[in-house]
């Protein structure tokens, strides 16, 4: 009753694009900027800075950061083997993000698929899938990952698989619940009456409706998976040397906490900022795809 009266024509004309809505949320823009920086660092780490991240220069051991008269690469300090912290940060971006995106991508696709199927077709299989998901989701991810990685060895593929498996139930349950709700709606019956088969119904009609919530979950999961991977690497069961990960860098720097604080500080800061960026984008995405909250991201209208 107190919501603004609907006017279809005016609303259609005024619905802004995603880019416009992004621009209105300054924090989301900042997050995007940071992620762009990380992307650049990632590329640099793989190409230009690859040498510097591994070359040992004992002469330049444990140099403190922020001394701008030195070589650019040493602006964030060096570690106990003289390697540039800046270069290593860039080099570690790759593995950390690769693991995060693969794990989330895998869990998104498989989890959504399982959830859609179990919600749509129901039956015993559906119940079993849901029950299993409930069981997994209750258990602390880190612990589960630890145990599995211990048993099967901490390779990167094992890492991605175990992270994906622990995150999957979230999508299964969400997709299941959303399908159950959408399935009851009239337009599904209408489509079915027009002769649409199961596949078409799921992919063309149901999936676009449930997609925004699932994508929001995915962006939140990116943040979570990054933190878990960092924790696992910190404990020694994640990404293994000679590969690099920010979590691993923190672990390696821990021994020198008192003398060389920058070795633990900067990698952790990188983790935190990247995770924050994913969280901010997730929150922006949630507001942008919620029709009731969207007005906050609209460009301000002028009175006629």
């Amino acid at each position, binding site marked *: *009753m*107190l*919501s*603004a*009266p609907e*006017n279809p*024509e*005016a*609303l259609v*004309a*005024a*619905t802004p694009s995603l880019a416009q809505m992004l621009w209105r949320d300054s924090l989301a823009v900042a997050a995007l900027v940071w992620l762009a920086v990380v992307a650049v660092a990632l590329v640099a780490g793989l190409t230009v800075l690859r040498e510097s991240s591994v070359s040992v220069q004992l002469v330049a051991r444990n140099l403190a950061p922020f001394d701008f008269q030195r070589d650019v690469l040493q602006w964030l300090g060096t570690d106990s083997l003289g390697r540039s912290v800046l270069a290593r940060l860039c080099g570690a971006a790759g593995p950390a993000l690769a693991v995060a995106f693969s794990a989330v991508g895998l869990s998104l696709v498989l989890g959504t698929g399982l959830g859609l199927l179990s919600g749509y077709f129901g039956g015993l299989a559906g119940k079993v899938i849901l029950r299993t998901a409930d069981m997994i989701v209750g258990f602390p991810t880190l612990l589960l990952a630890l145990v599995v990685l211990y048993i099967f060895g901490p390779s990167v593929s094992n890492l991605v698989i175990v992270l994906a498996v622990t995150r999957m139930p979230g999508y299964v349950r969400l997709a299941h619940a959303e399908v159950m709700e959408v399935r009851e709606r009239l337009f599904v019956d209408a489509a079915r009456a027009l002769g649409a088969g199961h596949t078409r119904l799921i992919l063309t009609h149901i999936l676009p409706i449930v997609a925004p919530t699932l994508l929001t979950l995915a962006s939140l999961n990116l943040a979570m998976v990054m933190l878990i991977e960092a924790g696992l690497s910190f404990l020694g069961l994640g990404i293994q040397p000679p590969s690099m990960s920010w979590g691993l860098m923190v672990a390696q720097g821990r021994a020198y906490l008192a003398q060389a604080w920058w070795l633990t500080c900067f990698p952790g800061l990188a983790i935190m900022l990247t995770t924050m960026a994913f969280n901010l984008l997730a929150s922006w995405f949630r507001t942008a795809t919620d029709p009731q909250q*969207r*007005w906050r991201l*609209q460009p301000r*209208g*002028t*009175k*006629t």
Partner: protein
Amino acid sequence: MTLDPRGSILDIRDLHVSFRTSGSPVTVLNGVTFQVARGEVLALLGESGSGKSVTAAATMGLIEQPPGSIDRGAILFDGVNLLGLSPADHRRLCGERLSLVFQDALAALNPVYPVGWQIAEVFRIHGRADRKTAALESIKLMEAVGIPAAAERAGHYPHQFSGGMCQRIMIAMAIALQPELIIADEPTTALDVTIQAQIVELLKALRARTGASLVLITHDLGLVAELADRVVVMYGGRVVEEAGVHDIFARPLHPYTQALLASQPRMDRSNAELRPIRGIPPNPAAPLTGCAFHPRCPRAEARCAQEAPADQMIAPGRRSACHFAAEMLA
């Protein structure tokens, strides 16, 4: 019947309310003016979207600003401009001297507290009674509105009552502190017909007993005929006609009111076709120049599209916002 403003309990003057939306702000109330005399029942009649509920919300201080905004006007309650009060002071009057009965009663009750507690809360908020006395009073009120086994049911939760019972509970909350003005927003719309009749009887009885003024917001002409003393007709965020209830039904002086009455199905005219009002309700996001009703008006002329009719007093106690009102009276 001339209205002396000093005798009115509620005096709304030139109220303008708009809402921020995805496009430009939308004006929902476009200069609403009317008064409610003490002890009378005023019906606020109009279709959905005419602005009746927004008017009630503004009076009770329930408009969230943003996205809403009260742009102009005054709402005088017993001479005091409610819009000039601080939200806290405005809030203090609500429930005590003026109250609102909501449309969907079940949704309007808090699901996690017993109904007796919710009625008693009105006393406690305004410091009129301690917990025990308030509880006793609330049982008495439940009995007064006709809820059987009140003492026992006071401990029950809203979901354990039917729609009609919930509506009675809402009414009990509204009359608890014997306010001078009660606004009832579509009090019977969500109920089925037999229950509707009971609620109407209840409202009549309460009015006789307490002497409070009642503003009845509705689009139900039958309810208007049964309860109202005077009628204010709203369309497109404005008042288009105001008259005593007999005059409104006997000789409406605005084309919209006429069309509304003509569109009612009649028991005494069998086999007659229904006569709906042609056209669609106005679009507040795209206001027209001139009279808001002119696209649907059988009397419309060129003048109506350009010039908005003034709200004139055409006879004692009768207003109409139509260029041809005087002609219709003659």
